Structures are given as structure tokens and as C-alpha cells.
């Protein structure tokens, strides 16, 4: 099925007939063509197993970590037009431009400072004062700075779940990514922490392109500008969020959004 691609906003990335095969043979994504508008948030919704996380992990080549996986089609990154899933492109390059926040907060078992600083350290030499400045700015952007500014060198594990997730966001922001991927970032958090993260995403999307996978339709409605509905590895419909949730064009989308299944 083809998606309705929006022409109006400038695009940050665009999937063109992207297919994905686990272990080379088990097809999980079928010819997905999806546009990701620049500096907007696109939500991916759909029932369990529809392939939304699989699609997300294509965007930063996470599937390369496990042997046997195969991509087909392309995902074009603008403005330079390179194909993210091209095997000749080094995945490290992609991951330096596209960051990810995971479902369960996974800070490194070191200090808060080191968690945020790591991404910058591996990029080459950087002076201590520069590093401090970037770490501080990232923690501010992640709305975590006031809570940790006095204990930057204590262990990240001592933070609460919501704080750890914000730390992971700061870690991803520190490297100045062009696109930020969120894989169900609040499913392991309590409602207060969830609300804070959603606030954060709403702020961040004005500066960075965001793609967020979520099980929670209300969250998609609150946070995203565009929503894509996936089902069984295919993109069923993608449109402005208000339209998807009030007047979807596709019957399947309507059934999912009104809770008739999923």
C-alpha cells in the first residue's frame, strides 16, 4: 500500500520502498515509503509486531549489530541525499547524525557527567572546558540540569527511572544529532515522568527532527505533528496527526484508532 506523502514541509529523511529481512529471509517491513518532515515530530503507531520498532532501528542501522539482517530499498537523508541503509555507508557515520533513546533507560554504569560526555570523547580531542560546556547545555536541553548540577560525578544508577531517561536524552543530544529516534521512551515510566518526557519532546521537535514509536495513541496525539499507522510490516497511512485521529482516510486506521483492535 502506498502512503500519502506530504509535500508541504521540507523533509529531513524519506524512506523509499524500504523492506527489511531479519536473518536475510524473514520479511518484517514491506516496501515502506514514508516522509519524515524536518523539525517536526512523526509518531509511528500500530499493534504489536507491526514493524514500527523495526523501521525505527533501520534509521540508525541498529540492525547491523546482529548478523544476517538485510535491507532493501533506501532511506534518503537530506540535505546531502545519502542513503542511510546503503551497505557502503559506514553505520558509525549514520549514528553520529541520528541519535536514539531506548525503551528502557540504559545509562552507562558510570557518572552522570561521563554518560553525557562519552559521545563527544569518541569523536576526537576536545578541551575540558568545551566538554563541560556541551555537557551542561545538553543536560539543560533535557530538562535535567537543575536536578543534577550538584552531583555530576555521582553514579547515574542513583537517579530515578524518569531522570535516567532524561539523562539518556541528554546523552543523545550531546552529539548534536540531526534526527532523534525515540523507541517507546515512556513505556517503563510512571505518569509524572511520562508527562515530563512528553513536554521535552514537544520542545525538542522545534530544533530537531523527531521520530517516536509509541504504543500509546494518546501520547502520539499529544506530542506529534504527523502520525504514521503501520500494520503487519506495511505503512497503512501517514498524515497530519489531527487528521489521523479524527478523520482517517483508511478504514483499518480508523478501526485501530478507535480501539476496535490492537
Amino acid at each position: 500500500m502506498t502512503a500519502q506523502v506530504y509535500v508541504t514541509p521540507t523533509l529531513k529523511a524519506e524512506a523509499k520502498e524500504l523492506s527489511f529481512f531479519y536473518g536475510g529471509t524473514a520479511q518484517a517491513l514491506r516496501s515502506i515509503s514514508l516522509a519524515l518532515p524536518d523539525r517536526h515530530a512523526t509518531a509511528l503507531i500500530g499493534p504489536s509486531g507491526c514493524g514500527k520498532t523495526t523501521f525505527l532501528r533501520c534509521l540508525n542501522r541498529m540492525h547491523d549489530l546482529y548478523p544476517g539482517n538485510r535491507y532493501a530499498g533506501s532511506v534518503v537523508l537530506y540535505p546531502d541525499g545519502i542513503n542511510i541503509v546503503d551497505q557502503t555507508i559506514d553505520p558509525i557515520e549514520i549514528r553520529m547524525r541520528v541519535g536514539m533513546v531506548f525503551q528502557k533507560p540504559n545509562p552507562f554504569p558510570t557518572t552522570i557527567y561521563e554518560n553525557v560526555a562519552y559521545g563527544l570523547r569518541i569523536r576526537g580531542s576536545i578541551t575540558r572546558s568545551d566538554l563541560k560546556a556541551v555537557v551542561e547545555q545538553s543536560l539543560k536541553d533535557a530538562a535535567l540540569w537543575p536536578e543534577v548540577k550538584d552531583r555530576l560525578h555521582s553514579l547515574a544508577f542513583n537517579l530515578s527511572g524518569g531522570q535516567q531517561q532524561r539523562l539518556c536524552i541528554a546523552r543523545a543530544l550531546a552529539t548534536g544529532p540531526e534526527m532523534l529516534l525515540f523507541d517507546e521512551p515512556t513505556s517503563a515510566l510512571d505518569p509524572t515522568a511520562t508527562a515530563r518526557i512528553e513536554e521535552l519532546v514537544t520542545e525538542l521537535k522545534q530544533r530537531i527532527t523527531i521520530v517516536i514509536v509509541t504504543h500509546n495513541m494518546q501520547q502520539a496525539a499529544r506530542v506529534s505533528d504527523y502520525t504514521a499507522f503501520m500494520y503487519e510490516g506495511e505503512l497503512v497511512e501517514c498524515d497530519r496527526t489531527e487528521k489521523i485521529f479524527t478523520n482517517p482516510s483508511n478504514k483499518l486506521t480508523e478501526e485501530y484508532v478507535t480501539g476496535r483492535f490492537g
Partner: protein
Amino acid sequence: MNAEAVLKKTVTWRWSSRLPMQMKEKAIESLLLFAALTSVAITIGIVGVLVYESIGFFRQVSLWDFLTDTQWTPLFSEPHYGILPLISGTLVTTAVALAVAVPMGSLIAIYLSEYASRGVRETIKPALELLSAVPTVVYGYFALLFVTPALQALWPALPGFNMLSAGLVIGIMIVPYVSSVSEDAMRAVPVHLREGAFALGATRMQTALRVVFPSALSGITAAYVLGISRAIGETMVVAIAAGMQPTLTWNPLEPAATMTAYIVQVSLGDLPHGSVGYQTIFATGLTLLLMTLVFNLAGHVLKKRYRQIY
């Protein structure tokens, strides 16, 4: 410099140094592969040396004589090259060791997995670890100067060097090994099998003996088999306490030499490199390796089986 400017700097860095980094990654991977391949090189070395020298040996001594002659006297003017005396020494000490280690190890394993409270387990496990940390030469000392005199108090006719003391001490030495592998196998038995027995009114002993033990049998057998392999390869205890006189005997109250003790005996002396006497230690070593290999493989197969069942 503010954060944005810093990031602009690092962005330009990204593109310029990708290639040397990829080469560095490849070089590191090759280095690590080399490290992994040294283990293969060691095996090739072991098999190569043993086979090479044994071939030299078997050019001078027929395989038939080697396997059937009842005397092992390679250093005499009229040499005999029958390996049976050494094998009998190894088998007898191993049998004595198993007679100790199998019941003790199994009982300890059953107790630890079915009965023991946390306090008991916390005391016993370190004690067992300690038992296995003692160097074998110290066990040899213990066998010669404590166990043998103690046994001689019961049987005054016991010779100063005998296979019984050595076997008993080897048995104690491998108890931690047998009990830990058996205990792992028993703990792998799922709780619901035990609960089924308890629900019928069985006591812990009945459950342990009739449900857990049989279910974990392949793992427990693996423990015994691997214990056999350890006992066969043991050197210092027998070299110190069992004597170095190769005799074809099945009586543990007599002194005898095992395959391992013989190799030590020759190494302590002076044998010209390349002589038949020198080559005998490699032929003996090859026999030893083959025996332990068979048991190790059997134990490995059994271990895999019990892991698969659950």
C-alpha cells in the same frame, strides 16, 4: 566557546578521519583473532609432539608388545615396554578415588541442592573452594606423611608407598569438582517436578532420590565422568605417595606407578634426547591423552544433554 560552536568543530572532524579508523578497527580485529587462534596452535602442538615422538617409539617397539606385555621396564638392560602395569596403576588409584568422591560428592550435592539452608551453603561452598585451591604437591605431602601412617596404624603391614593413600587423597581432592557439577545438574531440574512429589506426601529424601537424582542423571554422570578424567591425569599425589615402581597389580595396598608418575620419574632423571627411553614418556603421554579425551568427550556430551532437556 559555546556548545554550538564546539559541535560544529566536531562535525567537521567526523568526515575527515573515517578511513584510518576503519583500518584501525580491522587491525584490532585481526590481533584478537590471532589471540583466539593460539589456542588452536596449542592443541596442534600437543598432538603434534606426542604423535611425532610416539611414531619414533613405535618404530622400535611393536604396538602389540606395548599393549600386552605385562612388564614395564624400559630402562633395564633387557627392556620391556608393556603399558599394562602403568594402566593398572592409574586405574586402581582412580577407582579408589572414585569410591571416595562419588558417594561423598553426590551426597554433598544432594544436600546442598535439596536440604541446605543459606547459612550451611555459605559455609560449605567456600570450604569446598578451598579444598580445590590447595596445590597437589601439598596433597601429596599429606598422603605420604599423614594418611599412610594413619592407615598403617590400622594395617601395620601396609607398605610406606601404596595406592590406597594416594587414591583416598585424590578422591578428597576431586570431591569439590564432582559435587559442584552434580549440584548444577540437580538445580537445573525444574521446581515443579519436585513439587509434584511433595504434593504426594514424599519426604525430601524420597524426592531427592527418586525424582531429582534420576532427572539430573546425565548431568550427574557427566560429573562422575569428568571426575574420572581428573583422577586419571593427577600426577603429584601418586608420584609422592604411591611409589614409582611399575607393577602390574590390582591390589591398592601395594605400591605401583601410574602413567603420570612414570613420566615424572623419567623427567627427573637424565635421558638422552631421542633415545627410546626418552620416547617412552611420549608414548605414555599419548595413551594418557587418549584416555582423558574419551572421558572428557563423554562428559561434554552428557553435559550438553542435560542442558538441552530443560
